[in-house]
């Protein structure tokens, strides 16, 4: 604490400052307790990080959009092969009766490594 100028208008007695500090702290006790209780709300943690979460979500969306394969890329062809063949889906959806479990199991067997499953 800086040395007090003799012409200062403030009290010099350390007891005065201690007492005033104590009263001010006591005055705030209830409000601080209420703040502490409010911290228990689970979404408060999220709300305090809301800006970062929004920014991270936007960044993730942007990266995802940039990483989307184009129609002539190898990744897109791989994705196309991985999907259910159109003719199979069409026959199942447009058929007169719902497919049996046996039919489904045959149609949706995992593709073999050489792509013969299609």
């Amino acid at each position, binding site marked *: 604490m800086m040395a007090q100028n003799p012409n200062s208008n*403030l009290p010099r007695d350390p007891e005065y*400052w201690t007492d005033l*500090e104590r009263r*001010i*702290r006591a005055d705030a*006790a209830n409000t*601080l307790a209420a*703040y502490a209780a409010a911290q228990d709300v689970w979404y408060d943690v999220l709300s305090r990080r809301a800006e970062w979460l929004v920014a991270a979500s936007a960044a993730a969306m942007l990266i995802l959009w940039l990483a989307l394969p184009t129609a002539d890329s190898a990744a897109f062809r791989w994705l196309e092969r991985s999907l259910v063949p159109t003719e199979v889906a069409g026959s199942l959806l447009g058929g007169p009766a719902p497919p049996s479990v046996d039919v489904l199991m045959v149609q949706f067997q995992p593709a073999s490594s050489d792509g013969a499953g299609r």
Partner: protein
Amino acid sequence: MADEQHRTDEELARAAKGGDTVAYDALVRRYLRPAMALAWQYTRRVEDAEDVVQEGFHRMVRALADYDDRRPFSAWFYTVVRNAARTAISKDSRRAALAPLTLLQDDPPAPATPDPIAAGDVARAIEDLAPMQQACVRLCDLEGFSSVEVGVMLGINEGTVRTHLHRARKQLRTAMGPRQGMLQ
């Protein structure tokens, strides 16, 4: 305790906002004396300054929930204290007339013709300065705050504080004449 001393005001305010009483206590310790010095500029009485400071801290802790800790805490807090002082002063019109700093004019009218040498002390000479000059001289020269701190306390920039100090000291030197050694 030692840990609190190394935390910035904004960190302490953020912690206090979460109900951390230790952080709030550290803020009180850090700001009690400057707040009293500032409040005194308005009230001119220690007892009234004390009321203003208590009200200022009370308002501050209630407003902490809305405080944006990306902004400087000190400027925000001193604004709260100044508003508390203005409110207190406005409740007492008699005192308002006695406390010219209530208006906080940056460019106040010239003071009445002084006769500080006859009055015989620095305090009287300071009384004859313009309100903002009084505040700057008292806070810088009597209470020992830097011009940067005083700028934040009064809500004006440091350059303006220096200008007020320069004019005030010049006027005090003229008024005090051979006794000007008391000023610095």
